[in-house]
């Protein structure tokens, strides 16, 4: 194999993921070479969020591997930021907006160092970029859904990463927050960051993403948005779900249980 001049930012190599013995994502090969706004699109249950979690080591990969900058995630953690789906956390948790944004700096700080003046200034600046500087001391449960999502976005900004992975950052968010969030994502891209976004809305995907990957339990197609979102590809992803994969997954899980 020829030595590559610079490795892809993210590379999925033959990645298969299973939940409880049941495969939900099959043999994904995907390399993202340059900074862009990258959409991960597909129907419900297509494995979009699973793809992100597999990349981040949050779910075990049963086959294949994922690399960031040509190496394993554990060596480049500081360069990778993640924003989970909003519903995955308890918004009644006793923290305020500033506390959450400062968490973005904990990775850099290590376990004993306290966030100092520099971190607080950075956090405030990140809050300002998402338009929430005026609610910095508010308890997070008292924000609207769109504001909560923007707090998460600000936390990711405070991490100052090179690659960002967002899981449905625009779901259940009012139109104003959507515009604002998308504006920040586009600005990240313009600043040379790779921004990977799991998204369910095809219509927006066409307008927003430079490149997309179309998933349906396997990779249907990936590349520039216009080339991927063709009627043929969409039919294969949405209408023509490969029932076989679903059934096979169930059969594998069944077998694992009885064996």
């Amino acid at each position, binding site marked *: 194999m020829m030595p590559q001049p610079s490795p892809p930012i993210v590379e999925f190599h033959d990645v298969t993921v299973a939940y*409880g013995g049941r495969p939900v994502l099959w043999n994904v090969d995907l390399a993202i070479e340059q900074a862009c706004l990258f959409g991960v699109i597909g129907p419900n249950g297509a494995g979009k969020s699973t793809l992100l*979690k597999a990349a*981040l*080591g*949050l779910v075990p990969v049963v086959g294949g591997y994922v690399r960031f900058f040509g190496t394993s995630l*554990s060596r480049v*953690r*500081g360069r*990778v*930021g*993640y*924003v*989970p789906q909003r519903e*995955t*956390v*308890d918004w009644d*948790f*006793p*923290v*305020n907006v500033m*506390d*959450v944004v400062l*968490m*973005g700096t*904990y*990775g850099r*700080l290590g*376990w*004993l160092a*306290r966030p100092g003046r520099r971190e607080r200034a950075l956090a405030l600046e990140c809050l300002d970029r998402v338009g929430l500087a005026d609610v910095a001391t508010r*308890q997070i*449960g008292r924000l609207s859904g769109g504001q909560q999502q923007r707090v998460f976005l600000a*936390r990711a900004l405070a*991490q100052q990463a090179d690659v960002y992975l967002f899981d449905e950052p625009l779901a259940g968010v009012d139109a104003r927050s959507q515009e604002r969030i998308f504006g920040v994502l586009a600005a990240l891209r313009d600043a040379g960051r790779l921004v990977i976004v799991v998204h369910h809305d095809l219509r927006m995907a066409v307008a927003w993403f430079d490149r997309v990957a179309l998933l349906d339990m396997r990779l249907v197609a990936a590349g520039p948005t216009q080339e991927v979102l063709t009627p043929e590809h969409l039919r294969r992803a949405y209408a023509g779900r490969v029932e076989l994969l679903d059934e096979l997954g169930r059969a594998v899980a069944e077998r694992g249980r009885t064996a």
Partner: protein
Amino acid sequence: MNEAAGWMLPDAGHLAFHAWSMATAAAFSAACALVGSFLVVRRMSLLGDAIAHAVLPGIAIGALAGGQLGGPLVIGGAVAAALLTAWSTRLLRTAAGLAEDAGAGVVFTTMFAAGVVIVTLAAARVDLDPECVLFGSLELVAFDLMSIGRLMMPRATVSAVAMLALVAVAIGATWRWQVFTAFDTPAACVVGVPVAAVTALLLTATAVATVGGFEAVGAVLVVSMLVVPAAAAELLVHRMHRVVAVAIALAVVAACLGWLAAWACNTNAAGMIAVVLGGMYGLAALVAPVDGVLPRAAAGINLAWRVAREDWLAQIWRAQEELGGGRAVPRPMPRSLLERAAVWWLWLVGQVEDRGGLVRLSVAGRREAETVVRSHRLWEAWLGRHADLPLDHLHPPAEWVEHHLGAAVRQRIEAEMAGGPDPHGREIPPESG
């Protein structure tokens, strides 16, 4: 023993007896409240309960092996039992598909029972009383002394304070990681926080905290101290360090009050402390700002009272409008007790003038009424334009929106409507200064 001491003689020995007992209970309670705060915000209080019970066999085996109730062997046994509980609960879920709460129930009852069996079998060899395991023997704390340097201190007090210090250092040193992991485990994991180790440390701290006072206070109070102070604190304050501070304060106050109350009533101290703690939780749930039962009820009553007054004023205003010329109108019939009170109140403060069954609004009453009617008609106009509803659908929503529309919103709607009547063709009164 209680009878012998009584309340009469506040001599030095007597004071020391109370002080040592309360100090032991307080130190133990503070340690439990500290780790309990994290368990409660992580929705893991059930696992905390499980650990509080499941440490018993660990303690018993440690005590048997070491020949004494205390020391590193006992702590090690308790920590091992705690981790085994968490691990086997998870194993039951992943391998046997048992729900988390049922799994914890299976594990901790089994382990606690095993502990009781061991304690009973070994009671002859080690001084470990099955009664004490459940209810504790706080009353005996001051009679089992050990020397630390030149100081004579009760063994249980030393143990509880040592455990409190251990737990405080462990949680304090990992504070930010604990909070991040508790709030958002996946995100913490991605930035490199060792979330599994952070959780294991919390469970270890839970085991250590419970060991600190197991013999002195018993399993009942351990469970109560792990959950109740933190749950009450979460009602009262909304940042993690405050939750912990308030939980510890409540726990210490409950320990001291409970001890004194138990002494006065001549009953089991650990039980009384847990009862006091439960009472404090009830009080917190009643008076908690915003979300408490009383503030919510007060806000509800306040709103109903305002609505009743405003409705009454608006009703008279409309009747006067219909009659024209600011003339008095026959007094309408109040429909409820609240409305009756509102009528009386409005007459008392002079917003409604009443002469022999004929009523009319004073200047002040007119001003209030116009704001309500104005809100009502503006909302009807706005709905009529934007919602494309039949005319008879406009009144009901306006009837409650009229009480909530602020001056700013009224102004925006008016600017949009550019004057003009409401959809029923009636004039919208101007904003009154």
